């Protein structure tokens, strides 16, 4: 029996989890800073790291209590050491070091993106264990900050086949949602209004970038903006900073549903087609998706329709940042004896490979 305490503080969520044997979620606590950010008007790195300091002890204690696990039952402490905000990462890493050192158990530093890869290994105590994931497989990580196609040869052995060259897919969702005053987070908002829209209404550009498996969503974002602009000339405010746009509360006479549906289809088309090409090229056993945008229903459905192999997606609450996935990734490193030294430092621009 291996129980790992995992800690994740790479951005603005303070998270801790206890994971058993790399798969079973005994507890998964995420303290969101949304209320604080609402007060300040956004995520401020300095505020975020101070809030991590205030919250982290309670979050860790909650994780242990919920898991009915004592300190002496832990096998290792895992922590995200990058990529992320330097001040936020430091809180998690220093806490993890202190705990591991005082408990006399190994410290395991984990890459945040590696965590997302392993979100597909997790299940709750009530769920049955899923069939083992076979290698090589392909994982599409799509979130606000990342869009990457990762070939997983084996545990700990990854190859990045493609990634965004400008904006992440989730960022495009968020910015398009803001253009039309649909609120935040943009992904669910777009998905909701798109239900009423015609995905063929606007033929938005799909950046293929030749045979490359890289992605580009910046041009799509701008193309949507021009259409929104054309319909909403009276409200030049939409172009400006969201603060100005929010104050102006423009009444937009624009076909929101059609634009949302067409935009969503353009993003999903590109994600799905490139993932399929990569899956065939590398003859993978299955396809995984992870990250906030992997909660999108159209993406999941389209991918399953064309994949010709199993497609796995994490439970919705495991798509966004959490510590459970960090514990899942750490288990395989624990098994292999890949422990971190006590001088583990945070690396804000840490690469997966």
């Amino acid at each position: 029996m291996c129980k790992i305490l995992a800690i994740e503080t790479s951005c603005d969520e303070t998270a801790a989890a206890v994971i058993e044997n790399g798969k079973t979620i005994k507890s998964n606590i995420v303290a969101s800073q949304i209320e604080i950010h609402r007060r300040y008007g956004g995520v401020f790195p300095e505020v975020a790291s101070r809030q991590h300091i205030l919250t982290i002890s309670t979050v860790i204690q909650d994780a242990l209590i919920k898991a009915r696990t004592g300190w002496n039952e832990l096998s290792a402490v895992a922590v995200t050491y990058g990529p992320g905000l330097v001040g936020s990462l430091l809180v998690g890493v220093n806490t993890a070091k202190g705990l591991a050192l005082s408990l006399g158990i190994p410290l395991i530093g984990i890459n945040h993106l590696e965590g997302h890869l392993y979100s597909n290994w997790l299940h709750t105590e009530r769920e049955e264990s899923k069939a083992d994931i076979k290698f090589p497989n392909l994982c599409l990580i799509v979130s606000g900050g990342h869009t990457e196609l990762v070939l997983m040869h084996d545990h700990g052995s990854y190859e990045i086949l493609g990634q965004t060259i400008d904006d992440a897919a989730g960022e495009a969702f968020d910015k398009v949602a803001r253009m039309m005053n649909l609120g935040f987070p943009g992904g669910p908002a777009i998905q909701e209004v798109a239900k009423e829209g015609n995905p063929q209404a606007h033929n938005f550009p799909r950046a293929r970038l030749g045979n490359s498996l890289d992605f580009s969503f910046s041009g799509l974002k701008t193309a949507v903006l021009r259409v929104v602009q054309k319909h909403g000339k009276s409200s030049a405010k939409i172009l400006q900073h969201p603060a100005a746009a929010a104050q102006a509360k423009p009444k937009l006479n624009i076909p929101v549903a059609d634009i949302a549906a067409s935009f969503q289809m353009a993003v999903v088309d590109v994600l799905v087609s490139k993932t399929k090409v990569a899956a065939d090229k590398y003859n993978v056993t299955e396809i995984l998706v992870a990250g906030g945008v992997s909660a999108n229903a159209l993406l999941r459905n389209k991918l399953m329709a064309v994949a010709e192999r199993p497609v796995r997606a994490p439970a919705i609450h495991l798509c966004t940042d959490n510590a459970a996935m960090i514990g899942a990734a750490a288990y395989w490193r624990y098994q292999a004896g890949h422990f971190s030294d006590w001088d583990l430092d945070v690396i804000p621009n840490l690469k997966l490979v």
Partner: protein
Amino acid sequence: MSPILEPNTLDFISHSELQTHRLGARLGSLLEPSDVIALVGELGTGKTRWVQGICQGLTVTDRVISPTFTLVNEYDGRLPVYHIDLYRLTGAVDGMSFGLEDYMYDSGVTLIEWADRAMDVLPDAYMVVELYHLSETRRRVVLRPYGSRFVNLLKVFKKRTFAR
């Protein structure tokens, strides 16, 4: 559109993303430790494209992508580069709560998108890059230096870019 005839500013039109990238690279090659570049422009005017060019000029080999969600991307070039995006901030940005000083007074180069959110906390010397959408591929670019360091830097940039 009447040209801005302020003596120290540079006002010109970039005709393509490629040109924008080259101009950014030239600016980047001139940057020194603790320099701050403030990028101002609406959505889709090419702020990230400028940063990609500047980073090339700083010999960054990492992939340079939008930090809208991550807030700060760090790169290693011939100098450390801090690529910051204030788009998601709607409250007043005071330097303390963002921690901007930690980056700006470091020995790296700080590139700030949507910098109009934080003009009050910028140091005495910095360069503003203003971007305006003209057509699908054309952008008006205004470089506005603050402080003697950047007035001189812009003179060199002008000479290297436009002197025949």
